[in-house]
């Protein structure tokens, strides 16, 4: 699945009532199957851009078009909220910076939860396979509280891939992890995305992480509302 963003704009209302532009992206394309890293500083609109792409929030202007091999092209901004929810559940995987697992659910149940809103039959075998792939085959019945932060994020990765998405949106997926765990999680994300044939859009402020992906974009380059990153941040690591 490829993604094409055109003239995307989003403004938020400041406390003083003025409209503050946060996203102003004239054009952004992610080819099918490509793994793209988007780097930007805190507050540069990385999460907002992912929310816009996922249909969690709606833009003030512009289009976000997904070209699906089976279903044709879909402009998510033209869908109703319920349609966007269903589209997100079926075609997109989302990995949050903090894992956002449900505390009362086991690792396996958290992954199965990801399958619960797609009107498709749950696939426990696939869920177990994913957890096995992220190294948690012996932790299926563990609740998040009994898992380490790194393990929790692995469960979140497995959950994002539960519906065999076409595009995985990863919002600082390694931001809360130590370098070793961060590297392992990144490798797992990439491995599983390749396994299901999903594109990957990973936003991060960590250049070391971003550089490992095929394409690295700087948010300030594509988002006219974003401030440029300081030069050292972009220097080769």
């Amino acid at each position, binding site marked *: 699945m490829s993604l094409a963003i055109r003239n995307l704009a989003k403004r938020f209302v400041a406390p003083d009532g003025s409209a503050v532009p946060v996203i102003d992206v004239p054009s952004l394309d992610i080819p099918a199957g490509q793994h793209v890293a988007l780097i930007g500083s805190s507050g540069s609109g990385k999460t907002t851009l992912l929310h816009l792409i996922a249909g*969690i929030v709606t833009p003030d202007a512009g289009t976000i078009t997904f070209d699906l091999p089976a279903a044709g092209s879909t402009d998510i901004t033209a869908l109703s*909220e*319920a349609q966007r929810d269903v589209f*997100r559940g079926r075609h997109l995987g989302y990995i949050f910076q903090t894992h956002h697992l449900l505390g*009362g659910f086991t690792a396996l149940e958290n992954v199965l939860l990801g399958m*619960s*809103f797609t009107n498709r039959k749950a696939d426990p075998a696939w869920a177990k396979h994913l957890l096995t792939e992220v190294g948690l085959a012996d932790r299926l019945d563990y609740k998040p509280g009994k898992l380490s932060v790194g393990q929790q994020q692995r469960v979140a990765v497995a959950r994002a891939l539960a519906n065999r998405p076409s595009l995985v949106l990863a919002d600082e997926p390694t931001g809360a992890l130590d370098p070793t765990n961060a590297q392992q999680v990144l490798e797992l994300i990439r491995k599983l995305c390749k396994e299901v044939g999903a594109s990957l859009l990973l936003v991060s402020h960590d250049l070391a992480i971003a550089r490992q992906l095929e394409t690295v974009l700087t948010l300030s380059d594509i988002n006219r509302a974003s401030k440029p990153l300081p030069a050292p941040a972009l220097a080769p690591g």
Partner: protein
Amino acid sequence: MNPFQLVLKQMRQRALSTWLTLLAVLLGSALAVAVLILQRESRALFTQSDFGYDLIVGSKGSPMQLVLNTTYHVDKSPGNIRYIVYEAIRNNRFQVKHAIPYAVGDQYKGLRVAGTTAALFGFDEFTGQPPAGYDDKGKLLPGYLPASTRAEDRPADAKVAADVFEIRFGKKFTLAQGRVFHPRKFEAVIGSEVTDRTGLKMGDTFKVTHDTGGSSKLDEHDEEWTVVGVLDKTFTAEDRVIYIPLPTFFAIPKHEEAMDVQTAMQTGEDLSKFDKSKKPATTTTAPATTQSAPATAPAAPPPAHAHDHKSDPKPTTRPTTTQATAAVHKPDEDDEEDGHDHSHHGHSHGGMKYPYLINRDGTIDLRLPKDRWMLSAILVRTRGGAANMGLTYQLANSPSGAMGVNPASVMREFFTTFLGPTTLLLLVIAVMVAVTAAVSILVSIYNAVSARQREIAIMRALGATRGKVLSLICLEAGVIGAVGGFLGLLLGHFVARVLSAVFEARMGVQLDWLSTSWHEWVYLGSIIVLSVLAGLVPGLKAYRTPVATNLVAA
């Protein structure tokens, strides 16, 4: 995970809150269901119209008290009527099919002892023999149809049994053990529950005590009865009654005196002769002369057993019936019936006179003239509506001091006047409790939703629509309502079982606590609907949960 699994999972996450909410619904539902059962059963019980008799004749006064006392054996007898009223009714074949005399006022271990005739059980009143078509247990013989069978339901060659008294329409007394009592012996037939409640069984002998109507001052009579028959269960208050032959009831000396007082009051005689403070107990022979029937009746007869037992002189010694039967005949000085083969006669002991003679075969000769006999009530099966109305009218306008009431209509009035409003009030309370329970669901889930904003946002991010989230919350409320309501239904039936035991202890009748009615299912449905509606409030809160804000804030 299907929605049910999701909901159960989330309920388990906050188990304490869920259980407490469930408990609130459960208790509210149990209360409502118990009230519904109580209302249904009390209505069925008190508005039943299948009495085998359509008229109860008793002393003028409260019809309700008369019916409750006669039919359910609760409350005190409202008063007595003279035996000649019974004779007049029994002989009125134009209007009356069956008339059964009842004399009450004594008890054995808290159970009512009633003097009556074998006709109550469908046997011959005088001989105690079974009528045509019935065996000696009072059961229908093979090949016979009961007389109550409608003509159109009878095959042409059917043999129809004799028309006998039925305690409920189509249901007559039958004996499980033994036989019916002899009409003139100190014998007793006991209801099916008497053995369990008192330990009395076939062959046992017992003495009765005077029922002081709730007072602790009980006075045991000297006479001793032998259990000769046990009735089959009828599932009515009759199952707890001990029946004795009417003459043996009248044979109790203290009854004789009470009846004399009442007779005197009804005939307007001077009552001073009964005042023992003025006239110490002295030897008096049993009245042998017949008093004339009253020309006019007093306005209101006194209550049953109006005599004062405290002031009654106690008999010093007296042979028991068994002893008397076996005793060698020694005519007493005051024996007025020489030439009879009596082993024991009416004689004086310490000033008390026994108004009967015991023959060697155990039968008694009551020396109390019939016009001094008093009855508590007469169960009458009339020949139909017109006969019923006619007899009721005649009684109301006679100087007998008696009245006739239709038990079915009186019980309907009783339900309408007392039980109906009471159970309605209970039902209103139960509904209010149910609403309170629904509000507790609302509060519980509302608080849970407030605490689960992040989880809801995560589910939304995973593809759950607002509608899905709303439906999950409502489903959760509905599950609590359904589970709580159903458990409440079970508990309600258990409570009804306890109430049934109380009913049985007090009135001898059981509630059908096990069966359910459509009212209960409607209530359960209403609880579920109410719960789902209660879930709408927190559901809408969840519906409006801003996803992005809660994902970022988390």
